[in-house]
C-alpha cells in the first residue's frame, strides 16, 4: 500500500512534466495545426542557457527566469523565422522544418557545450520526504515541480478565459478567417501562442533535467512521452493534455516500479499499450469533440 502511494506520487510528479510538454504542443496545434517536433530541442537549449547563467551568477533563480525568457524568445523566433514562411505549402513541409530546427539546435548545443552529460541543480532538496518513518517517494523538489506546472497551467487557463488577449487567441484558434474579419491580428496571436509554448517547454526543461542529465539529446524521450500525452488527451484539449500527462506518468511509474528492471526497459512499450487502447476507443483522444466529417 505504501509502495503504491510512492509510485503514484512520483508518477504524478513526472506526469506533470509530460503535461507541460503536452500543453505546449496543444497550444501550437490549436493555433497553427502543426506538431512542433523542435519543442523538446528548444527546451534542451534553454536549459543549457539556464546552466550557463547559474554558473556565472551563482543564482538558481536567475537561471530559472532566464530560461523561461529564452523559451519565449525562441518560441516566437522559431515561428516568425522558419514556420510562418512554410504555411500554405504542403502540410508536411512545416513538420520537416521543425525536425530540421530540432537537429540544428542539437548540433548547435553540441558545438557550444560539447556532448558530455552535465548535471543540473534542483531548486529544492531532492531527498525524499517522509511521514513519520514512511518515505513518500517524492522530494521537496518533486512537489515544487508539480506546483510549478500546476501554477503555469492555471495561469494560462485563466488568461485564456478571462482576458481579452485570451479571447482573441481562442477566437483565432476556433476560426482564423472569422477572427481576422473581426479585426484580430491572427498572425500576431499565433506568434504569442508559440512564445507561450516556448515558455512551457523551457519550464519543463529546467524541471525535468535535475532527474535526468543535460546533453544535446536529453529531451528526446521526454518529448516523445509529452507528445504521447497530448495525443492521448486529444490535441485540441488543454485539459486533455494535463490528464494525458498525469495518466501516462502514473502508469509508467507503476510499470517501472512493479515490473522490475524489465519494466523500466519496457516503459515505451507500456506507453504504446496505453496509447493503442485509448485510440482504439477514441481515435481523436479522450477529450476530443464529436468528429465532424464533411462529405
Amino acid at each position, binding site marked *: 500500500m505504501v509502495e503504491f502511494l510512492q509510485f503514484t506520487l512520483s508518477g504524478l510528479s513526472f506526469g506533470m512534466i509530460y503535461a507541460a510538454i503536452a500543453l505546449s504542443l496543444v497550444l501550437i496545434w490549436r493555433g497553427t495545426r502543426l506538431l512542433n517536433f523542435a519543442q523538446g530541442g528548444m527546451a534542451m537549449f534553454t536549459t543549457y542557457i539556464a546552466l550557463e547563467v547559474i554558473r556565472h551568477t551563482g543564482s538558481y533563480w536567475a537561471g530559472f527566469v532566464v530560461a523561461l525568457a529564452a523559451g519565449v524568445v525562441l518560441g516566437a523566433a522559431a515561428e516568425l523565422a522558419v514556420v510562418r514562411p512554410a504555411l500554405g505549402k504542403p502540410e*508536411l513541409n512545416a513538420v*520537416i522544418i521543425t525536425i*530540421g530546427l*530540432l*537537429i540544428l539546435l542539437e548540433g548547435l548545443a553540441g558545438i557550444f557545450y560539447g*556532448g558530455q552529460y552535465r548535471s543540473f541543480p534542483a531548486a529544492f532538496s531532492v531527498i525524499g520526504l517522509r511521514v513519520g518513518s514512511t518515505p513518500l517517494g517524492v522530494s521537496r523538489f518533486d512537489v515544487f515541480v508539480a506546483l510549478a506546472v500546476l501554477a503555469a497551467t492555471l495561469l494560462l487557463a485563466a488568461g485564456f478565459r478571462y482576458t481579452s488577449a485570451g479571447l482573441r487567441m481562442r477566437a483565432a484558434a476556433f476560426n482564423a478567417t472569422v477572427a481576422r474579419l473581426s479585426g484580430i491580428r491572427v498572425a500576431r496571436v499565433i506568434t504569442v501562442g508559440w512564445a507561450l509554448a516556448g515558455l512551457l517547454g523551457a519550464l519543463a526543461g529546467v524541471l525535468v533535467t535535475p532527474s535526468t542529465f543535460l546533453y544535446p539529446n536529453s529531451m528526446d524521450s521526454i518529448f*516523445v512521452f509529452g507528445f504521447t500525452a497530448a495525443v492521448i488527451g486529444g490535441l485540441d484539449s488543454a485539459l486533455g493534455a494535463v490528464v494525458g500527462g498525469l495518466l501516462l506518468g502514473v502508469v509508467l511509474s507503476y510499470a517501472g516500479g512493479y515490473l522490475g528492471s*524489465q519494466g523500466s526497459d519496457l516503459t515505451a512499450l507500456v506507453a504504446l499499450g496505453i*496509447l493503442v487502447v485509448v*485510440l482504439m476507443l477514441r481515435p481523436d483522444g479522450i477529450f476530443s469533440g464529436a468528429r465532424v466529417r464533411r462529405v
Partner: protein
Amino acid sequence: MTTRSTPRVLGAALVAAVLIAILSIKLNSFRDYQIAEIAIEVTAVAGLTILTGLSGQISLGNGAFMAIGAYVTALLLLHLNWPFYLVLVLAAAITAAAGAVVGVAAARLRGPYLAGATLLLGVALPSVAYAYTGFFGGDQGLDVTFTTPAFLGANFPLTRWEAWVCSAFALVTLVLLANLGRSRVGRSWRAVRDDEVAAALAGVNVAAARVLAFVVSAACAGLAGGLLAIVTGLVAPGAFTITLSIALLTAAVIGGLGTLPGAVWGSLVIVLVPTYATDVATSHGLSSSVASNIPLAAYGAVLILVMLLFPQGIQGAVRWLLGLFGISSARDWRPSDVSPVQPREKEGTQ
C-alpha cells in the same frame, strides 16, 4: 500507360545498375560502403514515400519495421544457415506481416494521432531487445557474418559485393514499386488519399487500401533492415532509434513526397550531407566536439532551407529545371498532377 512505362522503368533501372557497377569498381571501399548505405536508405524511403505520399498515411515508425527486418535476418542467419537472399526475402515477408498488424490498428487514425502512435512504435519496439537480452543480445546486439561468394575469387572486396547486393535489391524494389504505383492498387491509394468518401463511393475498399499500403511499406523497410544487418555486421537496438525513423520521413519529404526519384534524392541528401560536412569540418582542423556537431547543425539547416526554397522537394526542383528546357518528365504521383481536388480533411497527411 502501363505498356509504355514499364520498359522505361526497366531501362532506367538497367542504366542505374551499370552506373553503380562502374562506380563501385572505380571508387574506394569507403565509397562502396556509402553506395550500400544509400541503397539501403533508398529501399526504406521508397516504401515510406508510397505509404505517406500515395496513401496519405504518415509514419514516424518505419525504423521499427527496419528493426524487425534486421533482427529476423540476424536470427535466421545465426540459427539456420540459409542463403542470404532467401533470408532477406523472408525478412521482408515477416516484416510485411507485422506491417499488416500495424496497418489494421492504424486504419482509424488520422494525421497527428497516427504520427504519435507510429512514433511511439518506433521508440518502443527496439526496447524489446533490451528487455529480452538472452534472445536478442541486449545492448551488444547480435553479430551477423556475411562474406563474398566463392565465384568472385578470394580478393574481391567485401564492401563492393555489399554495394552490389544492396543496389540490386534497391533497384528491384524501385521497379516493383513503380509498377505498383501505376497499377490499379496505386490508383486506389491516390483516390483514398485525395478523398476517402469519394473513393469509397467509387467502389474502393478504403480500409483494405490503407492496410495494404502499410504492408508494402513495411516489406520495404524490413528488406532495408535486413540489408543493414548484413552490411554493418551487427544488429543492436542502438541503430534503430527515433532518429532513424525521423530520418526516413525527412528523406521522403526532402526528395519530393510520393515520387520514387525523390526517394533517391532524399537518400543521397541524408547520407552524403553529414559525411561531406564532417570532411570539411575535420579538414579545417576544428576541435572534435565542434567537428562532430557541425554536420548535425548543417544537416538541420539544409532541411529547413530545402523545405523553404523547394516546397515540392528536390524532385520538384528537378522537374522545374527540366521544364525550363522544355522536357516534361514522366508523369508521377504528386497530388496536383493527379487531381485538382484537395484533401478534404484538414489534417489529411500531417
